[in-house]
């Protein structure tokens, strides 16, 4: 009888294991993104949507001031938006996401709206993420690089990015120094980077 009970216990274990295996297929969890209202973004007037899932990600830098803490990064995100929307007259900040060296991701146009970051050919087919700062001479802090990679993983999990998405450096597709020599070398090691 005890042998039968053991068998029964094994069968139950198998059942549990199968259940657990199915649960692991659930989308990986996404790190929080600082929403627009939290960093004090002005309302967006953009209407053009992206066709999801997007195949390309273009990584740039702002070549402006860097920021190390939530307060200064929030201010920097506002500055970039002010420049794009007020000075240049665009419908919103140009990037889909902005990464601060505080390790946080600031929501720009998000996953669904076409950005203005890489010209008329690439804007409709890519997500533009930018690192706030100038990365010609130095790398962003590791936490900022981690935040960016985890953002992209989240994009795949949400179905906004194609699972076989390709990362491009801004200088790979436009005549620019962005995203800076140091950051460019770093993203070339990312698994989805394709020259």
């Amino acid at each position, binding site marked *: 009888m005890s042998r039968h009970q053991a068998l*029964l216990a094994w069968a139950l274990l198998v059942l549990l294991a199968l259940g657990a295996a199915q649960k692991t297929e659930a989308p990986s969890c996404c790190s929080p993104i600082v929403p627009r209202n939290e960093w004090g973004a002005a309302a967006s007037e*953009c209407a*053009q*949507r992206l*066709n999801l899932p997007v195949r390309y990600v273009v990584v740039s830098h702002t070549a402006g001031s860097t920021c190390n803490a939530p307060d200064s990064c929030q201010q920097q995100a506002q500055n970039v938006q002010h420049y794009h929307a007020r000075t240049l007259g665009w419908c919103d900040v*140009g990037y889909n996401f902005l990464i601060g060296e505080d390790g946080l991701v600031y929501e720009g146009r998000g996953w669904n709206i076409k950005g203005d970051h890489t010209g*008329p*050919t690439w804007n409709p*087919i890519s997500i533009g993420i930018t690192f706030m700062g100038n990365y010609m001479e130095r790398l962003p802090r590791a936490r900022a690089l981690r935040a960016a990679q985890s953002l992209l993983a989240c994009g795949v999990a949400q179905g906004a990015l194609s699972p076989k998405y390709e990362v491009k450096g801004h200088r790979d*597709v436009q005549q620019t120094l962005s995203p800076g020599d140091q950051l460019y070398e770093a993203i070339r090691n990312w698994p989805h980077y394709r020259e």
Partner: protein
Amino acid sequence: MGTAQLRGLLCVLIVSELQGAAESSDSEKCVLAEGETLKVQCPFNIQKHAYSRKAWQRLRDGEEPLTLAVTESTSGNHSRVQTGKVTLEDFPLEAMLLVRMANLQVEDSGVYQCVIYHPLKDPEILFHPVHLVVVKEKQAKGRQVQVPSIRAILRLDLLNTPDPEKKPTQNLPPTTTKASSPQHTPKFNISTSNPTVNLQNVSSIVVPVVCGLLSKSLVFTVLLAVTQKSFG
């Protein structure tokens, strides 16, 4: 006017992505009807290849790839070349080669690729090989409903390339290097009745359900056997 002939479809390969693992992961599959136009966007590295010649090739079993068209210009300006039904447009300042293959016929079915053209060296492959399947118009009739909605989606990718339904006069500003200002208004009407989208929804539900049912029934069979044995 034959609408099929005017119908430009960019195979950006939503379809292939939905078909999942059945296809080789590196090639992009594209199914079009006779008379339609294949459009492919092939990005290249602007630092390396703004001045390189680019080509569109057909792959053949056991033979060298057949070069169907090659761009001539190495001046770094926008250039356009047409060879038979193939049109290549090089946008060097946008790091993009746009390929169009018009008036498709069943015999055009096959595998194609964009390359950086080196006459003496092995070509450098851009984008991914494109696995094109051209079906008869009759078979395509059944797709008539789905074509507009796919087209609406694909149109977005083509936002800034000349629309095949208009005269191809729209050129990109040749010196635009900074980020663009919003100037195009896409027709955006993704239809929820798009069959390819439904296909994905259905398969994404059916597969786990079937797997779940199979595994559960296996476990319960074992359980039943065990209990019968223990009481028998």
